[in-house]
């Protein structure tokens, strides 16, 4: 039985994001919170593995009390269990403090085969936690996975590496970081929603950890965000091309190449 844990994070819906210019932080009030988009792909990856190999999928998040709704959504999507790592002292954790908390949590869980994460979160975009957590737990990290087979305690996976595809093997337990291009997250069913709100969510707080002394999100996070700002909007430019159609096409290609667009396809022809 494969024990799968998917790490998810609740983030502000980036469609309507505003930044407080004075404090340099994201305005979270009045903004709807959603599951980080990449994490849906991680959940789908985990659920697919369960359907193929049996076992159990647990969604795990570290976040404030309102992150419960994100876990309910994971349950509605089909995960078997949900763990909410939540304590006021975890607030303001940077990626390192987050990793240390998660390490403590997994040290307590002990029995895990696969930990799956998305690539990065849309609110901070660091993508550091999978790397740090694999180091902290001293387990292999496999990134950019798009398919995977499990035989006994060995995982064999295909991963993307630049323009190559690699076959990699590792021994369980393993941390997987999956991309968003290799699966289509399933739609949530109404029965799933009904059951999700009847399920228990396991709570883990600061007191549950084996060695809580190293944890203090606000005081012990080495990272400080000094400023957050919106990039200046690029103004759209327009240019009218002159000449015959083929001259215009040639000119257009040159312009596009000037913008570091690597591959240009016209019909089936690669230029």
């Amino acid at each position: 039985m494969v024990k799968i844990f998917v790490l998810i994070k609740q983030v502000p819906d980036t469609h309507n994001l505003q930044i407080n210019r004075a404090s340099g932080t994201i305005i979270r009030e009045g903004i709807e919170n959603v599951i980080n988009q990449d994490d849906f792909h991680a959940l789908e990856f985990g659920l697919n593995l369960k359907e193929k190999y049996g076992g159990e999928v647990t969604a795990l998040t570290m976040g404030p009390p309102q992150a419960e709704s994100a876990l309910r959504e994971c349950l509605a999507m089909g995960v078997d269990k949900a763990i909410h790592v939540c304590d006021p002292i975890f607030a303001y954790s940077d990626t390192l403090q987050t990793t240390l908390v998660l390490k403590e949590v997994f040290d307590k869980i002990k029995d895990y085969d696969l930990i799956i994460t998305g690539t990065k979160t849309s609110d901070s975009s660091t993508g550091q936690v999978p790397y740090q957590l694999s180091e902290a737990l001293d387990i292999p990290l496999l990134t950019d996975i798009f398919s995977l087979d499990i035989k006994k305690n060995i995982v064999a996976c295909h991963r993307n590496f630049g323009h190559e595809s690699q076959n990699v093997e590792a021994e369980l337990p393993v941390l997987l970081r999956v991309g968003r291009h290799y699966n289509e997250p399933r739609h949530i069913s109404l029965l799933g929603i009904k059951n999700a709100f009847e399920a228990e969510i396991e709570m883990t707080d600061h007191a549950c950890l084996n060695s809580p002394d190293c944890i203090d999100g606000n005081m012990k996070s080495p990272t400080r965000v000094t400023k957050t700002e919106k990039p200046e909007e690029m103004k759209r430019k327009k240019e009218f091309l002159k000449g015959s159609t083929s001259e215009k096409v040639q000119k257009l290609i040159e312009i596009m190449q000037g913008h570091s667009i690597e591959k240009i396809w016209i019909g089936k022809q690669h230029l």
Partner: protein
Amino acid sequence: MNFELKDKQKLVRSSVRKFSEEVLAPVAPIIDRDAEFSWDTAKELSKINAWGIQLPEKYGGADLDSISYSITIEEISRICASTGLTVTVHNSVGAYPIYKWGSEEQKEKFLPDLASGNKITGFTWTEPNAGSDASGIECLAVEDGDDFVLNGSKIFVTNGAIASVLVVGTRFKKENGEEGMTALLVEKDMEGYEIGTKEDKLGMRGNPTTSLYFNNVRVPKENVLGKISDGFKIAMQTLDVGRIGIAAQALGIAQAAYEHAVEYSKGRIQFRKPISNFQGVSFKLAEMATNIDAARLLVYRAAYLKDNRERFTKESAMCKYYASKIARKATQEALQVHGGYGYMKDLPVERYYRDVKVTEIYEGTSEIMKLIIAQQILRGNI
């Protein structure tokens, strides 16, 4: 008093919205254009339990509350009103009366296939000579041994071409001389059951509406729904429930029209300004938003009363009357905001304008809704 949806209901909204935008949106203009029901879409709807929204889990349903039900129909109809119609009729006036008045045998026989979407159902009462006057039906079921022999015809049957079993309003005659109205579960495979041609309609074209002919159809007595003489009561109480779904459907169409109008008016520049800067346009948006909000509160209140087992005949008629009225107006104004573009088939606004009209007609016209509301008031339900 709490005006906020529960977390569960919020998740129903976001999930069904995502499903509708991803799965139904590409199909909606096509089933409208071709006037074709999509079985592929029906299979996708099965995956989210849309065919058994409120049926208990033991029959394969999702066992949700009535506000979640309304939200589901609203969100489906916001993207594809035809699909919203198929789904709400199946759930609220087809599967619901079987669950509410059916025997355990009937429930076990029909509900699992209905909840999974393997089979589609519906409800038919209207006949050539009996519409608003529901007591005037002429379909006749005459007792003959263990069966009733059914003769007559039905018109404007929603889901007519795709339903495997229908709740059919009939006038019965027993051998002992007893007469009255009964609701029969009539199955497509019964001999003498004939589906008429598909109606060519103004809107809701993705839902196949047909007439039905019953030619000496032998319906076994075990297919009588509830008590034999309870047909009229079953029909009226079923329609009380059905109307919440139709109101939710109208609400979804209104919401879609309104959202399109807001977006378009912000982007359309005339006289060097977005047209939303002109009060002639922005006041239309303000009216739409207010009306939609009011209609939504009426719909959810009716659903709330139903869930709390309180009387909701008046409230269900009110929400259907009001939501369909303001939805018709919203689609009309949304089209007007779009000007000539709104009249073209390139944009979905003209579809909303066509689809919405029937919400003022089926499951009781607006005039019948006012009649019901007035009757309730004058009986003391002020």
